[in-house]
């Protein structure tokens, strides 16, 4: 299967801080990919590198087989909805569609006007007067009507109310079915992504912690509870992601390709949100815990 996005050692530095470092990914086509991580983890940086808004400081990235923004043809193949869905507040909805038609040779005017009508947007309304949900739908329409092969969205539903959020995702999923799109969608909330994504990338502290098909991730991560024990004594092939102890009990989140046979452990499944939280606490643990000890 061809990869829609391939990155090798990708990194981006601002002055002295690395916003993204050592990122190696191979995202397959035909999937809805979720990019999850806390604020400031580097999600926007990665997505901006993918659409050519940023140049890499280190490493390489290829999207749909070509350097991002390398040519008008490459730009036409990738649709992008930026964070907070920027639109020209002085231009009307109809003006935005005209903008799309003039700037994109592959523009499908029919798709665009059908969507606007179905969404109930007034073509003569200025974009600045639209609600957050309506603006997001307008931005999505602009990205979809140019008929891309890959659609990239940066936290598209972060500032939307629950109803607008649901409507946006419904709309997006319908378009995936209609156009056979690959999608990369970022969010700092796992719940947003859980329904829609079948591939997940966890980005914490400017690094990729883990990536893979959601089914595979859920199948290879387990929650282990049992009597208090030193996690370092787990067998090979079982990697501890996070651990918490009380005086009697140990709870571990473990990653293991094979099944876990140790009878001392109670093995249970783990939800996606808890999986991501386990990775977050692993990265944060080293810096944060000493401070807590002192406070106690």
């Amino acid at each position, binding site marked *: 299967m061809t990869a829609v996005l391939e990155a090798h050692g990708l990194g981006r530095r601002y002055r002295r801080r690395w916003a993204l470092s050592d990122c190696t990914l191979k995202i397959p086509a035909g*999937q*809805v990919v979720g990019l999850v991580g806390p604020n400031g983890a580097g999600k926007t940086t990665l997505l901006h590198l993918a659409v050519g808004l940023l140049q890499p400081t280190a490493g390489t990235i290829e999207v749909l087989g070509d350097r991002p923004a390398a040519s008008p043809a490459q730009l036409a193949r990738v649709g992008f909805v930026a964070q907070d869905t920027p639109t020209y507040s002085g231009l009307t909805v109809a003006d935005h569609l005209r903008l799309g038609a003039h700037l994109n040779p592959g523009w499908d005017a029919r798709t665009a006007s059908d969507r606007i009508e179905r969404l109930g947007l007034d073509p003569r309304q200025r974009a600045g007067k639209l609600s957050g949900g309506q603006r997001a739908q307008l931005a999505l329409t602009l990205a979809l009507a140019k008929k891309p092969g890959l659609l990239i969205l940066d936290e598209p539903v972060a500032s939307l109310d629950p109803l607008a959020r*649901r409507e946006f*995702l*419904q*709309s*997006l*999923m*319908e378009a*995936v*079915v*209609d156009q056979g799109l690959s999608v990369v969608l970022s969010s700092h909330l796992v*719940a947003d992504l*859980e*329904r*829609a*994504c*079948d591939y997940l990338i966890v980005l914490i502290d400017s690094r990729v912690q883990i990536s893979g098909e959601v089914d595979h991730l859920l199948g290879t991560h387990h929650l282990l509870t049992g009597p208090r024990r030193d996690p370092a004594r787990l067998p090979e092939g079982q990697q501890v992601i996070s651990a918490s102890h009380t005086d009697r009990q140990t709870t571990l989140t473990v990653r293991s390709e094979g099944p876990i046979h140790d009878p001392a452990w109670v093995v249970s*499944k783990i*939800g996606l949100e808890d999986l991501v939280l386990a990775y977050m606490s692993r990265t944060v643990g080293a810096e944060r815990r000493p401070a807590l000890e002192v406070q106690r």
Partner: protein
Amino acid sequence: MIEFHLDAHSGVAPYLQLIHQVRQALRLDLLSEGDQLPTVKDVVGRLAINPNTVLKAYRELEYEGLVAARPGLGTFVTRTLGDGSPATIAPLRRELQRWLAKARRTGLDDESIEALMLTTFRSATEGEENIA
């Protein structure tokens, strides 16, 4: 046409939930032979879930022989689940309704009735398994 719903917090994989709902609809006669299942686009447009999830569920149902996909037309039910024809279900339902009326007359509230039904069902099932 049936409508799917998703319980995001049940811990059950979404595609399994869809399969379960189709089977339940077949059992309760909400779906009969020849009926069309909602299109992938319809399901995805209502639930905002990944299309591959729906495809996986429909493929599994097809593998079980319950539905068949006709390219360009949709996915259609090919056979019902044999265990319950309307003739066998209707008298059972009536008996259950009578029992419920009786339970209410004794003064039990809804929660107690539900608990009674579930525990009896579970212990009966376990009993059968132990015997089998």
